[in-house]
């Protein structure tokens, strides 16, 4: 497979945290390698034990999986462990201009940790991800409408609509009481939404697999450098991951790379370019 060339990517160092039931490390590392970043996969326990674990990394990725079996609630046990053992370091990483990407369980975790939506300093959980309206896990590809006006650095070079696999049971976003949702909408901190065939945000199943209001599939912080989403960009790394790749090839529309790769590339490009 050809690499997706990004100038300066070789200077980008990404940390992928693994272990405790997380399970998307191989594809996440492969994606970051493909775009030319230097990637380190490290067990959470070792990262917690090492005070300098985050030093030198511009991107920290919280990957998908079932941290601690998603027991109690998805991401809850992992988020607690991070809060009690690594919370300050993560805040410093973000404060120093570092990027954080949370995918699926990683999104659930950083939401429950309080890194997102990140409207104020410190760690405060103000939204949550709860059980899908149609109870239980569901695996299907979804369309995402991308908000080009969002500050999110990961999504800004994406086409208006991309497709990604979605596979989770707790992806419905809920807000604390009050005006928070409107604030997030107004500030374009909702970079991706589940979309229907016409590319419009939708709350209808199955285009929206979890019943998230407004089709919200991901959130970013006001800096655009902390981003989490439920669908899996790292699982659309190759053109052949797409369920219709043979038809796309025959129609001459097969992309050179999986479109999910471009989302990770966006993060690397933001670091390499600035």
């Amino acid at each position, binding site marked *: 497979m050809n690499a997706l060339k990004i100038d300066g990517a070789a200077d980008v160092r990404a940390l992928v945290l693994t*272990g*405790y*039931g*997380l399970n*998307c490390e*191989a*594809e996440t590392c*492969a*994606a970051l390698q*493909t775009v030319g970043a230097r990637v380190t996969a490290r*067990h959470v*326990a070792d990262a917690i*034990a090492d005070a300098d674990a985050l030093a030198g990394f511009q991107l920290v990725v919280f990957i*998908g*999986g*079932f941290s*601690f*079996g*998603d*027991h*109690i*609630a*998805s991401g*809850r*046990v992992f988020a*607690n462990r991070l809060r*009690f*053992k690594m919370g300050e370091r993560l805040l410093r990483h973000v404060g120093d201009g570092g990027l954080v990407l949370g995918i699926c369980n990683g999104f659930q975790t950083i939401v*429950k940790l309080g890194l997102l939506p990140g409207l104020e300093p410190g760690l405060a*959980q103000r*939204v*949550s991800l*709860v*059980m*899908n*309206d149609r*109870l*239980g*896990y*569901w695996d299907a*590809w979804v369309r995402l409408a991308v908000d080009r006006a969002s500050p999110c650095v990961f999504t800004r070079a994406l086409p208006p609509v991309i497709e990604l*696999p979605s*596979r989770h*049971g*707790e992806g419905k976003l*809920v*807000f*604390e009481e009050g005006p928070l949702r409107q604030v997030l909408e107004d500030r374009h901190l909702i970079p991706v939404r589940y979309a229907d065939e016409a590319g419009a945000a939708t709350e209808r199943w199955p285009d929206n697999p979890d019943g998230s209001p407004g089709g919200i599939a991901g959130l970013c912080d006001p800096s655009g450098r902390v981003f989490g989403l439920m669908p*899996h960009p*790292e*699982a*659309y790394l190759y053109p*052949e*991951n797409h*369920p*219709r*790749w*043979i*038809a796309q090839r*025959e129609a001459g529309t097969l992309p050179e790379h999986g479109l999910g790769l471009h989302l990770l590339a966006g993060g690397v490009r933001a670091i390499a370019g600035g």
Partner: protein
Amino acid sequence: MRKLRFSQPGARLTAEWSCAKQGPVAFPPAEHPREKVPELCTYRLEIAVRPGLGDALATATGAQLAGMRPTGLRTRKVYLLDLDIGPDEAERVLAALTDPVAEVGAVGALPDQFGAPAGAAGEPWLLTIGFRPGVTDSVGTSVKRAAEDCLGRSLRGQVYTATTYVLWGLEAAEAERAARELHNPLIERAALERSPRPAEFTVPRAGAGHDATVAVVALRAADDAALMRISTQGLLALTLTEMRAIQRHFADLGRDPTDAELECLAQTWSEHCKHKIFAAPIEYTDPAGATRTVERGLFRTYIRGATEAVAAARVADGRDGAAPFLVSVFHDNAGVVRFSDDDHLVYKVETHNSPSALDPYGGAMTGIVGVNRDSLGTGLGADLLTNVWGYCFGEPDFDGQLPPGLMHPRRIRDGVHRGVIDGGNQSGIPYSRGFELFDARYAGKPLVYCGTVAVMPVRSAGRPTADKVVRAGDVVVMLGGRIGKDGIHGATFSSVELDESSPVQAVQIGDPITQKMVADFLAEARALGLYSGLTDNGAGGLSSSVGEMAQLTGGADIDLALAPLKYPGLMPWEVLISEAQERMTLAVPKDKLDALLELARRREVEATPLGEFTSTGRLRATWAGKPVVDLELEFLHEGTPRVPLRARWSPPARPDSPAAAVAAVLGEARLTSEPGAIEHDLLDMLARPNMTSNEHLARRYDHEVKGLSVVKPWVGARQDVPSTATVMRARHLRPEGVVLAEGVHPHYGDLDTDAMARACVDEAVRRALCAGARIDRLAALDNFCWPDPVQSDKTPDGEHKLAQLVRCCEGLRAACEAFGVPLISGKDSMKNDAHLGGVKISIPPTLLVSVIGQMPDVRRALDLTPIAAGDLVFVLGPTGRHLGGSELARLRGLVLPGAPTTDLGAAAARYAAFAAARDAGLVRSAHVAGRGGLAVALAHMTMAGELGLDLDLDDGLLRQVPEDMPLTPAELLFSESTGRIVLTCRPAAAGALTGRLGPHGLVALGRVAEPGADGGGWLRVRRGAQALIEVTGARLRERFRPAAVHGPPAPLPARAQEVRR
């Protein structure tokens, strides 16, 4: 079990703290360092969804309680902290566990009316469902971890979880019915209380503080009746011959065996572990009446025999050069074949039938995580790649009377799916293949097949990964979960029929997250070379895992008192044979032990040295120095008496349907009397349980994790048609692919098991080839599930069932040799009968053949979806009158002769020609004609392509049929003749394709056309001017996809514990 009190909360959501000192603990015995028992306090935490937010579990539960109409329903998570913490600490733990946005929690209890929905009136019922004492509670383990993180110290004690359902507006009888619906009493307990709740609750603390004892069994003095009593009452499943052999052995030794020795022998000699039926010499009288002896037994003659013949042929033609295709077969936990310069492929398929009958969720979950461990424990370990599953159930819409003790097939089906879904998803392993088959005879025992493909690096830490290198002196280390009473007698239980006394403790509950952490740990330890061998603790527990690995060095010596327990009170024999899950046994060189234990500590994986491997020729186990087991390995593994068996082909009479009834369905006359008759058959067939889409269940399984999928389980324009075979990359950034497919045809076995076996191998091979597999790199697994084939009073037709097995093995070997496909691993499950309430239900003999194929570049993969209007449609391979055991026969209630026979030589030549044409780029899409025949294959292609298929039987198919045996259109379209591939090609390729495949039975069917007026697919099949089928894809889809896929509520979890992300 302890009873505690909490105050009924009103305005203040607090509770009365209840602390109790544990009683005197007599375990472990004084010789061993005793864990200090601290003072444990118990706190009850209750957490509910914040009022105003939807309670998804309540919604789902409401739908499950069909027929009951509660006026209100809410749920609460309950955590019983039985830990050494104080009241303020309990509050802090509650805060850490409760979602500040979405939930509200209390220490003690929330008010009963908390969150009452509008319209809920009166005092509610509170139904609390939790696990029975000793049942694995993995959520409880995670809560304890969270409490430790929150409080910043390690804690003693345990956490128990439960769910409370608050139900308004139900009568007492309805509430009791709800309690029955929502729990499985084998593993769960339910407490139903009317508000206001009594101020007490129980903690399901398990275990008893009594001393470990070893009993001696007075075997030498026992007569035959006593021997059989000892076997039956002890659930040993040993026959009289075997009991006598053990008696003789100990008489020679001049002593009686201990209870642990007898248990150890029973596990090791079980049908599950020793495959006695496949090893026995058989005197076989074939259908022609000729009698001969299968001297070396079925396994050596047919299974291993097939593989040896294929291997020899490969050597003879020099195909594999210096790198043999077969790397490791039959002797390890899973088969291993060569794949690339860097990796081997590992594949194993298991069955977990009996436990799934008792607790479908736990039994099936254990099936999938158990087979994962088989691959993890092959050689020095492998990286798990993808799962497969297949289930045979009773009819899901069965509405008759079930024998007492049997669960309804629908409930079994739901539970089995959920168990494998949770086990696979939480382990981070996608599924590739899945099938379901339904037949009333599977109501007694469901068949639950679970399999796993893994990728094994050719070398790791400088050593060949496929070989274990255990040496005497290496340390025996138990890794993973702790030992409890769960799963005791699993191996022997699977070797007996299901009856009213089937043991509760035979059911294990899996804990996928513990196992995932073990798997990750093993990958690290393997790369560092920290161990020299490993195997999983499955059937038979330590007795089997240590007993088997001991053969590598010639002995082992372990101290059972060192094994970590879930709770006190287990006897040494129970520790030895418990099948508590998530455990592996490692052999660790002494100079690596510290590094291994340190890594395990950092990864929060429990690792415990139990003893060492020796070369004494003996398996020895002690309890703190006192002897428990001292057995010669040779007697343990080779002492099983080989009892010759008799097989005689003597099928029961099976009168075919009268000619008039057959003609009424298949005859020409019906086409005029009932216009659209074939179309009706097709539409009705697509809605049948065996044929209809199970996508609504399949999409609960992860398809995509690892990001390697290429041809997915569901394909087509709407991704709602099951693929012919699946393709995935084996490693990232590499082009090589793994192709998976299977064949399973129990209904042909009703006519002839030889035909069944050929059809299974043929279909699995054909499917893999359709997707693009190399024809010279196919390997297969055999899974036999049989009703008891040993003649006895209970099984008067045992000789015929064994003859069916012999013929099946003959067909299997013939097909594998013809296609050049070695059998690399397999499993037999031989007692699939239920004897309940005077009713005996036996499964039909069932063979599953699973094929694993390879392709050099996944970008050459094909699927069944027609690609472009104008392309031509062909069928390759002859169609004959093969409707015996067909889906059409079952649909129309006919008994027909003529299961598909497979001309193996012709099929092998045809496939070679097809693969060459495919590799030359002449084929654009390919699909098998299988169950339901050509008609169903065409329906799949129509739905997948959303294009027209305009076909005419006169174009060639009718001309292919021999004139002296004409077929009617119904026969042509629904015959299940094996060996056929439906394919499409560009018009320009037709000439070359016909040139290559014409001699192998390629005939034109018609062409691919533009979509219909509705923009979707359509299927038209004519015979000249006569329309036989004229139907839109939308219409086909209406029948093929159950309503659950379109919109109404999805299937529901039976228990809150099963709701997973």
